[in-house]
């Protein structure tokens, strides 16, 4: 390829010019530590203030400004929307910010080093848990898969990571927590981890290594970057970037989802769905999984709807299965993984995860 071309003046001059600019830029951008602490404290205080004000504000808006009766259809729908929307966004900003900071401590390189050569079982548990905190985007699933497998992370352990990372993500957890409640959120996270651990372990037992595309093993993996230790201001900035990127991407789905949820909330009669989505319908769980698969990346929009369905008599197990199918089994990710997995292994992966989700669905329909 082309040789390095030196900049037209001299490299020294360019570097000097950059240095001359440096102090001013630094002063403008980096606040001293104690101002930063004060700014963070003020932001936290403002957050709490806003959170406390939401309930009376939404009452006032729906009742006094719009003059809506809380018992009417439109009244209960509007109340739901004006209360839940700001609440969910406040929770989302706070949680995405904190998770964004936590994630700067867990790079994929560090996770791989923790998992390489790990025995199965212990490795599956560790991989599923690291999947929650390691930054992951399904668009880099292929380089991550190759990087893991080639450095000696067992195949099943790699899958435990690949299953838990998209399933237990901060957006899904915040929406569940804010809209449905801590009990269901704990169930979702707990059963999600279990599915990731068990599915990965089963895939490992099945000895499917030969169904990985053979070119994967001939790729030469370089040493990579030595991840530099970030400073605290850099970590805080990473949190802010995460808020901008994630909230910027999902907000239309959330607003849309809450609007549909609000409509269901106000207009669909109580128990209307007990017949079709209730415990009695044996086919509801597999059907929920089948419908969930093509709804990739819309967890943000789907959870508010799901919450409303729960209120109208849908069974918890079917609903959990549906949410898990949305987040864990996505068509685009399958297409991406097909580059490194032969059809048999891809089918085994999708089939085992789907079975796990269906089992969870039936279990909770039977228990609750």
């Amino acid at each position, binding site marked *: 390829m082309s040789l390095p071309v030196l900049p037209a003046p001299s490299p020294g001059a360019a570097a000097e010019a950059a240095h001359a600019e440096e102090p001013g830029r630094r002063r403008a951008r980096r606040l001293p530590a104690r101002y930063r602490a004060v700014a963070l404290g003020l932001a936290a205080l403002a957050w709490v203030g806003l959170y406390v004000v939401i309930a009376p504000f939404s009452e006032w808006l729906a009742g006094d400004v719009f003059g809506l009766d809380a018992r009417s259809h439109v009244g209960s729908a509007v109340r739901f929307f004006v209360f839940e929307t700001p609440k969910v966004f406040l929770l989302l900003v706070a949680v995405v910010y904190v998770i964004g900071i936590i994630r700067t401590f867990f790079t994929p390189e560090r996770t791989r080093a923790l998992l390489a050569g790990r025995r199965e079982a212990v490795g599956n548990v560790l991989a599923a848990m690291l999947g929650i905190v390691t930054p992951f985007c399904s668009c880099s699933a*292929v380089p991550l898969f190759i990087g*893991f497998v080639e450095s000696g992370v067992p195949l099943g352990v790699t899958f435990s990571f690949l299953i838990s990372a998209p399933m237990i993500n901060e957006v899904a957890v915040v929406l569940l927590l804010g809209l449905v409640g801590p009990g269901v959120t704990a169930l979702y996270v707990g059963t999600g981890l279990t599915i990731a651990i068990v599915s990965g372990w089963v895939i490992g037992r099945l000895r499917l290594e030969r169904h990985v595309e053979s070119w994967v093993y001939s790729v030469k993996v370089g040493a990579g*970057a030595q991840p530099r230790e970030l400073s605290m201001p850099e970590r805080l900035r990473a949190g802010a970037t995460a808020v901008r990127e994630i909230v910027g991407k999902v907000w239309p789905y959330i607003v849309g989802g809450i609007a549909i949820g609000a409509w269901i909330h106000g207009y669909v009669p109580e128990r209307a769905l007990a017949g079709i989505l209730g415990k009695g319908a044996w086919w509801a769980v597999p059907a929920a999984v089948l419908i969930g698969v093509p709804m990739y990346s819309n967890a943000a929009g789907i959870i508010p709807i799901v919450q409303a369905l729960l209120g109208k008599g849908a069974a918890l197990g079917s609903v959990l299965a549906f949410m898990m199918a949305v987040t864990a089994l996505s068509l685009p990710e399958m297409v991406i993984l097909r580059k490194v997995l032969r059809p048999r292994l891809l089918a085994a992966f999708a089939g085992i995860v789907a079975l796990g989700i269906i089992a969870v669905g039936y279990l909770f329909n039977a228990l609750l």
Partner: protein
Amino acid sequence: MKLEILGPGCVRCQRLAENTKAAVAALGLEADVVKVEDIATIMSYGVMATPALVVDGQVRLSGRVASAAEIGQLLTA
């Protein structure tokens, strides 16, 4: 100077490429900015999280979209 943007062609990779070009233009550097989408080449740099920025064969950034200002600092450091 040779700058390579590694990534399978997602939106984030696009944005990193744009920011890099902006940084190069702002600093008046003469540099080749190339997008690399081939997995084997990406792996040869040992990158597991895309997008990544490679400067003259050295991985300087991976797994995030840096701002043009940050890339500028990185190129002049």
